[in-house]
């Protein structure tokens, strides 16, 4: 692991805390864009030998995760007149504490899953921490739009882990994954837009007409 790589991974985990701690939706979206930018730099930092593959991956990631998606989410906030708060189900302090617990779990579990070429467990830990933090945001935030942010964090965690596979997994596949995420978030954004028009506020807590219990 190069020092730059370690630094980037730690920065990625720190951005998770920034999302957990903020009360403003726009800050959350900006942070997730920043996280996308850090992720775009990761392939270059982890594989110092330049290749077309890593370069294309970095550019594609920056474009989708740091460029188009945050802009699109900001557009949805503006157009649909969403209130600018996160509206968590639990307090921000508790969110951060739970996030810290999640990171702790990730660092405890990671050494049990050794990467074969001895690249250290930081990468695995960072990936798992991101996945857990994403799940935390998904379950404790009420707004549909914040759930999209949580989904992006989760997906970013998977992406970090995927970087261990860049030599193995061909470019075509990464393209497919990136495209799927893009289309998925796009459709979610459109649904969010309709939810707001229909319910006057983008809150998934209001979505409880369909119930059996």
């Amino acid at each position: 692991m190069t020092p730059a790589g370690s630094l980037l991974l730690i920065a990625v985990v720190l951005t998770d805390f920034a999302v957990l701690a903020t009360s403003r939706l726009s800050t959350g979206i900006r942070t997730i864009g920043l996280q996308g930018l850090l992720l775009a730099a990761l392939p270059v930092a982890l594989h110092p030998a330049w290749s077309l593959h890593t370069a294309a991956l970095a550019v594609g990631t920056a474009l989708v995760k740091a460029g188009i998606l945050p802009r699109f989410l900001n557009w949805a906030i503006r157009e649909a007149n969403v209130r600018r708060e996160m509206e968590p189900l639990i307090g921000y302090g508790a969110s951060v504490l739970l996030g810290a617990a999640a990171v702790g779990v990730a660092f405890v579990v990671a050494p049990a899953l050794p990467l074969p070429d001895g690249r250290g467990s930081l990468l695995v830990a960072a990936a798992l921490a991101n996945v857990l933090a994403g799940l935390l945001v998904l379950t404790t935030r009420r707004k549909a739009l914040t759930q999209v942010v949580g989904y992006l964090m989760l997906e970013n965690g998977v992406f970090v882990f995927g970087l261990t596979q860049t030599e193995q997994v061909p470019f075509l596949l990464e393209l497919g994954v990136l495209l799927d995420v893009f289309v998925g978030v796009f459709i979610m954004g459109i649904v969010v837009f309709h939810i707001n028009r229909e319910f006057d506020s983008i809150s998934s807590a209001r979505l409880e007409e369909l119930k059996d219990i």
Partner: protein
Amino acid sequence: MILALILIPALGAIGAYAHRQVAFRTAWLVTVAAVHLGLVLVAWNAPPQPVLGGWLAADPLGLVVLGVVSALFLAASCYAVGYLRRENPRGGRAFVTCLLAFLSAASLVALSQHLGVLWVGMEATTLALAPLIFHRHDRRSLEAVWKYLVLSSVGIALALLGTFFVATAQFAAPASDRPLVLADLVRHAPSLHPSWLKAAFVFLIVGYGTKMGLAPLHSWKPDTYGEAPSLVGALMAGGLTSLAFLGIARAVQVMAAARLASFAEPALIAFGLISLVVAAAFVLGQSDLKRLLAYASVEHVGLLVLGLGVGGAGVYGTVLHVVNNALAKGLLFFAAGNIALATASSQGPVRGLSRALPRTAALLVVGLFAASGSPPFGPFVSEFLILRAVLDQGHLFLGLAVIGLLLLIFAGMAKSILGAVYGEAPAGLSREVEDAWVLAGPAALATALLVLGLYIPPAVGRALLQAATAMGGHGP
């Protein structure tokens, strides 16, 4: 040949968008579906050569799933002709396009031998159906599509992590120039890294299990099936679940080859049993027909993983049950669709179908008995095989519990469905719904279910046997 199976529906999806008139689009849909089924039959007859360096190939398990999805899709397209004449769902032109995009993605899933390509196809099927759920401009369908999107996307993201874990487990095996390709994974399975493989299995079963709707990961299912148009419900309950099952089956194939079946089996059995319990609890007292069918779907996907979990002849029963489940769910959802078309203008519970819609009522009752595993229909054979395997493996209490739960579910379903069939028909039920287009599909599925209950064609039997053997099972 293999590429044609994927590309023809994809091109058809684009072509459908170009047509302005509904009649053209539906004719186009039926044509593409028929061509696709024809190609699938050719592939059944003579398995085509693998393409793209072995990434895509037609193996027996994939062919079984592809065949049943393609047949169900043709029935759904015929149904769509009748449906789109009466209803005008939101999105108009996109409706047929999304259906064909689903068929293309489904073919990609069924034919992929590469776990990464499988994932890409699986995500594409999820996304292709999402706009179809949101067909009415109201809160309920919005809520349904939101739950479906969020839960499926999270599930599928976890499955991607599982896929990456499999690739990592492969580091320990002899170097392969085709990472994540199933044949290579199985060949070198004993030298895959066991703890990575176990972690991968956990993520894959949770990920694809969410998509399949195994309890307790099923919470999106009743809402989505309840709100989606019936023909989309048929494709989800019959097609999407079979594809997600294929994802889990691929993981089981690797686990069985790696001699880690003892790790996989308890998890599969637990998911199966929980699904049956949840289905039994919610089927009783469920009055909405489509939500009832959703819980029946939870029951049947539970049976699928249960059969995989007990192994032996249960695996053969499971593969057969994939076929039966898809046909039975298609039949029930199409019948439910006819009722929805007829009751569009009336309120209150549905009653008196036997007088108002006699043919639909007959199909519904056939579907009820078929889906609950009564002879002489196909699901009886497959459920019997799974149950016998449970008892053969010495799980006496599990077997008794399964029998009890199946009876409870049958009682719950029979109560609601028969309640709707008999009684006095309310006013405002439009009787002109039943035409050839909306009856042909379900009638064909009912016939297929009857045939499969009495006789399994040798070609199908061979494919089922090979598929079961690949997952570490054996024939009955």
